[in-house]
């Protein structure tokens, strides 16, 4: 018995023969009927110049006070300084007017339209702004609750005044809790972990793996960034682990770098170990 494997709806072996089914053949035919024209490059999220710009942009869009006064649960729309929520095409569409607002303000808006939903927006690295980190639903197992998070207009820059984060929820979303990414203020640590060496990352185009701390720090500083460390320690079982409460130990210049993550705006976190661990 293997519980995690059992959670899978199907195994690949259950799908034997599907490739020659009518749906699979129709799909292939429809795809290759078109010329393989290269798709235009999607515009990636741009790094925020400063969070202050975002605050100013969003503040410009703020409408003060509830716009509709109804008893909780009877309204099909509600707005306060933090959020504007409306029922559109059978889905609740919540536009985040102030991503830095007290979460109680979001709850107030949800409550006004009869939804008991908790929304927690956390500082995120630029690539993760507008993404859901975690969510839970109050429904029974098997019941579908739809939760979507996106920018409007699609792929807009959050620094643009017209660019808004929009949460969409199915009408059975009561009981849901959502943690999602908002822009970070300059001194706020990111709550997500994002590799700094990825495209558009702070260390894009640079490999850190299997280099010594001195070499990597030189590159990080050359890019005008600061460094914090997380220490990877050998474990008795032969693996490696990290104790988040013991990260102040001095790190030697001759230690080895495993990875680099975005820590906060202008700061990179290096995952390091004293010993050089040979990759398997």
């Amino acid at each position, binding site marked *: 018995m293997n519980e995690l494997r059992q959670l899978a*709806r199907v195994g690949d072996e*259950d799908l034997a023969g599907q490739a020659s089914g009518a749906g699979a053949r*129709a799909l292939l035919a429809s*795809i290759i009927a*078109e010329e393989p024209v290269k798709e235009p490059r999607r515009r990636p999220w741009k790094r925020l110049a400063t969070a202050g710009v975002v605050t100013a942009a969003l503040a410009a869009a703020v409408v003060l006070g509830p716009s509709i006064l109804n008893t909780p649960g009877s309204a099909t729309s509600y707005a306060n300084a933090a959020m504007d929520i409306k029922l559109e095409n059978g889905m609740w569409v919540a536009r985040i007017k102030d991503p830095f607002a007290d979460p109680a303000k979001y709850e107030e808006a949800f409550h006004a339209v009869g939804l008991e939903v908790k929304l927690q927006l956390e500082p995120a690295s630029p690539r993760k702004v507008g993404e859901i980190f975690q969510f839970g639903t109050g429904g029974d197992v098997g019941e579908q609750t739809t939760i979507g998070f996106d920018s409007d207009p699609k792929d807009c820059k959050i620094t643009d005044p017209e660019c808004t984060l929009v949460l969409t929820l199915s009408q059975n979303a009561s009981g849901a809790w959502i943690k999602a990414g908002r822009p970070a203020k300059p001194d706020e640590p990111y709550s997500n972990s994002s590799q700094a060496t990825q495209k558009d990352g702070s260390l894009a185009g640079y490999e850190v793996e299997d280099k010594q701390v001195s070499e990597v720090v030189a590159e990080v500083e050359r890019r005008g960034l600061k460094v914090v460390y997380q220490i990877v320690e050998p474990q008795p079982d032969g693996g490696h682990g*990290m104790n988040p409460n013991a990260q102040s130990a001095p790190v030697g210049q001759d230690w080895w770098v495993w990875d680099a993550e975005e820590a906060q705006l202008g700061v990179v976190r290096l995952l390091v170990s004293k010993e050089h661990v040979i990759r398997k």
Partner: protein
Amino acid sequence: MSTQAERFAEIYAATYEQILGYAMRRCEIPEDAADIVAETYATAWRRADRLPDGDEARLWLYGVARNTLANHRRGQLRRQQRSAELNVDLADLYSRTPDSSVELGAIARTFRELNDDDRELLSLVAWEGLDHAQIATVLGVSRNAVRIRLHRARKRFSRALSKAGVTAHNLAMESA
């Protein structure tokens, strides 16, 4: 059929069931799984010049499917309807799905409530049976990054299970 289309059709036939499995294991309803499969292969066709051969193609397609799924989840309201026949096939497959898979109650709920990155890593190990190097290819990160992230994901999952009062010894969290 052009040479490029023939090559694509071969890769499609060799990987379709695995990509379909990937999508079905991650989508609650058949229409969503059909969208993911259709969009994954449509994207692969648009980038056919970059589609690798052999098993690398499967890993590359998992990566495309993963991005497609993430975009899909970010824009739930924009469902495409490019695959009506596929919807029918998948509706049939979903109806045959045994219910026992959702009876694992607490584990299923705990697993669903992990953050997306942790759940995807553990799924790639348990469901797709990938090793560190293959996962690194799918995610476009280094093997060391995979090792560290898997270690953290397992820890977080174990902690969440303990909190939920579940003792599970046979969770497939190690690479095959």
